[in-house]
């Protein structure tokens, strides 16, 4: 895969991320499954210098909202703000070892979850399964595997 075309690479990996997000899982697994789109997008944000990261986050967030039947903009808002956090600490993430990167992923996942649930709570009230709170942890745990696979694809 050619890395001199970052947007083509992004479309390919995000298609794959949306595909994984659409895989039907039992309810509990679905709740604790990592934020795949966030993980793939963060990888691209860190390792590819490109413009319009927030606008692209909006587009992929909307696609995820439609795929999952969520409120339009719910995943988009969470993805944009989590990406903003990663963009701010990009240099630090880039040079960190894998465990420190996992801490950053946990924080990004937590921001994503807080915003996702905030929208949900504002509209539907405090009515959700608490198992979902484990999702940032699984997001952090899956980061090494995602990083390894995508770095292989990059080359």
């Amino acid at each position, binding site marked *: 895969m050619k890395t001199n075309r970052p947007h083509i690479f992004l479309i390919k990996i995000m298609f794959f991320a949306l595909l994984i997000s659409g895989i039907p899982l039992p309810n509990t697994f679905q709740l604790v499954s990592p934020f795949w789109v966030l993980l793939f997008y963060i990888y691209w944000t860190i390792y590819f210098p490109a413009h319009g990261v927030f606008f692209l986050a909006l587009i992929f967030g909307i696609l995820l909202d439609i795929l999952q*039947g969520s409120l339009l903009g719910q995943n988009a808002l969470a993805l944009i703000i989590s990406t903003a956090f990663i963009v701010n600490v990009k240099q630090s993430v880039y040079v960190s070892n894998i465990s420190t990167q996992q801490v950053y992923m946990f924080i990004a996942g937590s921001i994503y979850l807080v915003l996702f649930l905030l929208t949900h709570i504002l509209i539907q009230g405090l009515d959700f399964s608490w198992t979902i709170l484990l999702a940032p942890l699984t997001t952090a745990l899956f980061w090494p595997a995602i990083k390894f696979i995508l770095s292989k694809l990059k080359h």
Partner: protein
Amino acid sequence: MKHLKLFIPIIVSIFLILSDYKFSYLDNLRQFTSTLISPIYFLVNLPSQLYIWIDEQGTNKQVLLNQNKKLNSELMELKVKLQPFNSLILENSKLSKLLESSYSIDSPEFTLAKITSISQSRLKKQLIINKGSKNNVKVGQVVFGADGIVGQVTNTTPFYSTIILISDPTHYIPVKNERNGVRGIGKGKASNSNTIIVNYVESKLDVLLGDIFISSSIDSKFPHGYPVGKVIHVEKQTNNPFLDIVLEPTQNTNNIEFILILKQDNEN
């Protein structure tokens, strides 16, 4: 400029959230994009469809013959059970004519569909079926399983439709107790277990464990009298004027393969 690049997408997404929640201006955009990304549903289900196909190819002829025999006998049994029901319908229509009543029992038409995947969202309980707008499936149509109401169609693409389950926390259904007609509003419970809570049933009313709640005709969307759930928990709370009732849906969606979509649009 740097902040503007961040704030514009944030404002757009907040605008989308508000407009999607309050209004239906974005339904066409959602419909169009759903159609565009519907190949993802196909790809996601490809492995399971392939497994089913291989499994079907390997099925023994004798097994198929036995299955056919069993299904035929079941069909015959159901037809016999239906005979008194047919005469009751006739009797009912005669009585309605005599009383000059406009009440009549509907003879509903259904579309059969196969479930392709279950729940791919964190906070929504929904499933995807292999019939879409090309098969005249429309948003709002009610979906049934062999044992009761499954849910309602929420989104359609030409080849796929999304169904929200009655156990989803955003889904409401008017229900009544089959035994004594006690009415309430059923709402999905946000938990890992697929359960429904019944709201607004006064604590002095009679609801017992094992009672069956059926759809009520108060709401025009749902046809009257189809099973919704069985009471698995009922509790009188001291500081609450209403009973705490939990139902287990009569239709188990974990092992369901086919569903029926009610063709008529009860939207009047």
